[in-house]
């Protein structure tokens, strides 16, 4: 695996940004500052980080209702994200979308999505656009284990395979579809086996090992850029929080969370960096402080921003650009 120390440090910073953003979002939700639902990504940081570390700014991602991690890993701005959670007019969706609709087309972020499995066909659409334009971009499509029971998953994999589209399907298998364990919602343990039905490679990796995710997606991206079609990469991971904030998680067996906390992806990277003298204890502490300051700055920005005006309620809802009887 060809990876530089600089890339490892960048991945570490990204994971910290996700962890600290989400941890603060949890507290702010409890304080009533965040409207609507939030679905936190704590524990799954290695997946978005390892996958997106292979992408360029002009590559695309599609996300899920648990999308903060993907957006941060693809370069989303923490200030605009936090402002969106605060429903402020400076937010990514001008405060009217909330956590589950954050998008940034300038960075290839085709949007978080409140509908389970809805990102999969958007990813196929973007893959078709890439192929049509004959560029070497790719699209990484994030989704959860339970969404692979949806028809969208099967439609998406089928067309992506038939048309050899540059899409990397990254399944975050965290073992639950809302409150239903994987054993109760699907007759397989490894989502990767579903790739065989669509004549594409399917692999399973440790989703709490950022290097394992990076390596698998790296190969899949290289293949997609060469026009060799899609891949399904399943990352086994776990969400530490409930499905949504406020979820009492009574469906979890005792000790399960503790078992996964021991596999926390962030200390694993710290240990590797220390053992291989990539960062010192002091540099790790300084990086943590640096990211803490970024989160504080984002929160301050969101706090000081204005709420959307009443007049803006219907803006960006309907288009008024009509041409030859068609909406553009």
């Amino acid at each position, binding site marked *: 695996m060809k990876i530089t120390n600089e890339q490892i440090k960048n991945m570490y910073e990204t994971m910290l940004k996700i962890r600290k953003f989400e941890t603060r979002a949890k507290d702010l939700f409890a304080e009533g500052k965040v409207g609507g639902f939030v679905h936190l990504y704590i524990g799954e940081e290695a997946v978005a980080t390892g996958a997106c570390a292979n992408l360029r700014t002009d590559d695309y991602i599609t996300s899920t209702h648990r999308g903060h991690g993907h957006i941060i890993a693809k370069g989303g701005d923490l200030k605009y994200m936090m402002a969106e959670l605060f429903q402020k007019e400076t937010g990514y969706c001008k405060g009217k979308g909330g956590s589950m609709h954050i998008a940034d087309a300038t960075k290839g972020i085709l949007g978080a999505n409140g509908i389970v499995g809805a990102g999969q066909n958007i990813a196929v659409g973007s893959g078709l656009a890439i192929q049509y334009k004959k560029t070497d971009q790719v699209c990484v499509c994030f989704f959860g284990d339970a969404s692979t029971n949806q028809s969208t998953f099967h439609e998406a994999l089928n067309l992506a395979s038939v048309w050899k589209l540059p899409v990397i399907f990254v399944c975050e298998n965290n073992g639950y579809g809302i409150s239903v364990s994987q054993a109760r919602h699907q007759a397989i343990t490894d989502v990767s086996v579903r790739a065989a039905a669509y004549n594409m490679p399917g692999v399973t990796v440790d989703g709490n090992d950022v290097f394992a995710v990076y390596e*698998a997606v790296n190969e899949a991206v290289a293949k997609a850029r060469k026009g060799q079609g899609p891949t399904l990469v399943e990352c086994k991971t776990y969400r530490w929080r409930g499905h949504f904030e406020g979820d009492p998680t009574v469906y979890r067996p005792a000790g399960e969370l503790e078992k996964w906390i021991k596999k926390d992806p962030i200390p694993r990277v710290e240990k590797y960096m220390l053992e291989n003298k990539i960062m010192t204890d002091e540099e790790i502490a300084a990086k943590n402080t640096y990211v803490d300051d970024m989160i504080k700055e984002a929160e301050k920005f969101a706090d000081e921003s204005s709420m959307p005006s009443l007049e803006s309620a219907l803006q960006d809802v309907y288009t008024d650009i009509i041409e030859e009887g068609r909406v553009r």
Partner: protein
Amino acid sequence: MISIGIIANPASGKDIRRLVSHATIIDNNEKINIVERIVLGAQALGVERVYMMPDSYNMGYRAEDNLNICNELKCEINVINIMRFDGMEDTISAVKFMEDAKVGCIVTLGGDGTNRAVAKVIKDTPIISISTGTNNVYPEMMEGTVVGMASAAVASGCFDKRLFMQRDKRIEIYKGGEMIDVALIDAVISRDVLVGSKAIWDMDSIDKIYVTRCHPASIGFSSIMGSKKIITEDDDFGAYGEINQKSQKVIAAVAAGVLSHISISEPVILNLNEEHSFISKYRGTIALDGEREIPFSENQEYIFKITKNGPNHVNVKKVLETSQKNGFFNIEP
């Protein structure tokens, strides 16, 4: 009570080799089918209890349910009660449990990695290894029914096991005088600094290969050595070779569908229990049976030693031949 054990690795057949080579995906439902056939073959020849390793997909319980629904289960399936970690630890714990329970034979479903985990702890219990993948040397592709029959013959205790069983070689890796790991087929020194997704497919990162056996009909690193020399499981030695640009290039099947051109030195024979020292000059990893396992940094010394401390491996064909010659399949009137 005649009993056997089954260790079916739920993780085998799904790693990154499906992406970087042309390896086959093996679904756990297919492993359950194989388990059912093993049980049916074994119970028909006298096995009364089958111990199974627990796993995240509950393969043991599913096999039991399926056979009960068909009204075909005659023996007892006992999914053993051990703490599950969903990793190599489960295989290790299961082997210990099964040996304590004095099973007559252990059947493994997995790849070289699964059998390496078994080899770490198993003592004298005979094993039969079924390959559930396309990148394996140690386990073989065999029909579960036949394996079940063979396991019953072994567990019956009716025959002299020396007729069909032999102690395999293994590579022992020592650091600071302590054995830290083992490999059954090959150990490779790689310049790859990360364990990552474990498998190795970049031949440019390989510097040295140790093998217990090698053959051009193998797949993986042992095939590279096998293109120069044949060493079988019966030979009382192994070998090592250096990958470098000055040596003759050979074509070898390093993974399923991947034929690489590699420069490999003439193999140097390593006799049993002979120690070979490797002192690292760079950061890298030691891959065991095809998987990066041991990261190392500069100036660390590792000792590689080939021994006969591997598992007692059953030759399925020979055990069934022995059974046939001794009337084991005859039904009393």
